[in-house]
């Protein structure tokens, strides 16, 4: 947030508006493929918002999990289920009530947080200086974000990396095609396969 604070705020407002629009569209969408594609759009917008908020590592994770692996997983699910949502039969009163209460509780929770971007927030008092001192003293990677992710929080990162690794397997699945188990394939797979 060094440059132009008002431009920053404007970009953030625009992105949040787009996010809200996409969310409403997802909720109204009845075709599941549309939902999958729009949630991937949502992830890209969310990742851009994270960049504006200077949370670069979160943006990276959001993009790879949201746009990469969850697309693959949701499509694999759609392969097993149908692709159209059934019309809603029950009343929406109770779900609406629950989500309003939860949302209100979350908003209420944010009141207790320190103001956004303030310099004397608790995290800047002891956490960040400790990371910086410690990583300098013990010859950790030159990039402190890397040091925090790979040295201080390595188990947490191991979990995240596992997710990204799984995403990599999804990529192989897509690009390499695949021999099915035992090299077998079904005869009827070739039907309807014409070349345009």
């Amino acid at each position, binding site marked *: *947030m*060094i*440059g*132009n604070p008002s*431009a*920053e705020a404007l*970009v953030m407002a*625009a*992105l949040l508006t*787009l996010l809200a*629009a*996409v969310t409403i*569209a997802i909720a109204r969408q009845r*075709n599941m*493929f*549309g939902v*999958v*594609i*729009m949630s*991937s*759009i949502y992830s*890209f*917008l969310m*990742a*851009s918002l994270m*960049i*504006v908020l200077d949370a*670069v590592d979160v*943006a*990276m994770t959001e*993009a*790879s999990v949201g*746009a*990469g692996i969850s*697309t*693959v997983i949701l*499509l*694999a699910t*759609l*392969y097993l289920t149908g692709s159209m949502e059934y019309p809603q039969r029950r009343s929406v009163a109770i779900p609406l009530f629950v989500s309003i209460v939860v949302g209100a509780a979350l908003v209420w929770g944010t009141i207790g947080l320190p103001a956004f971007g303030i310099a004397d927030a608790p995290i800047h008092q002891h956490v960040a200086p400790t990371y910086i001192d410690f990583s300098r003293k013990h010859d950790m990677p030159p990039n402190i974000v890397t040091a925090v992710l790979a040295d201080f929080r390595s188990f947490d990162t191991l979990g995240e990396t596992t997710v990204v690794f799984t995403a990599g397997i*999804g*990529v192989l*699945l*897509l*690009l*390499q*095609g*695949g*021999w*099915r188990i035992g090299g077998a*394939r079904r005869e009827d*797979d*070739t039907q309807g*396969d014409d*070349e345009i």
Partner: protein
Amino acid sequence: MFVLATAAVLLALLLAVIRAIRGPTVFDRVLAGNTVGTLAILLLASIGFLTGRPEFLDIGLTYGLLNLIGTFAVLKFFRHGDLAYDVDENKEGKAWK
């Protein structure tokens, strides 16, 4: 100048999202999604320059690759109805020359 670039990217993003919401076919949404991915890279770059910290452009490369993978996953599903489909496996002897 970077403000202009950021504004242009945001405007294009808005129009692409409108296209994604309006559809009408799934392929319109895929197309809009692909465009949003490209615009996210551009937004990343222009915000980087706007705030004077353009160091995290590597992430743009990741975005590009992920965008490609997501698009391909959806399209492969539509083309073949299956994510693990292999063209060569199912079509012998039609290779190019």
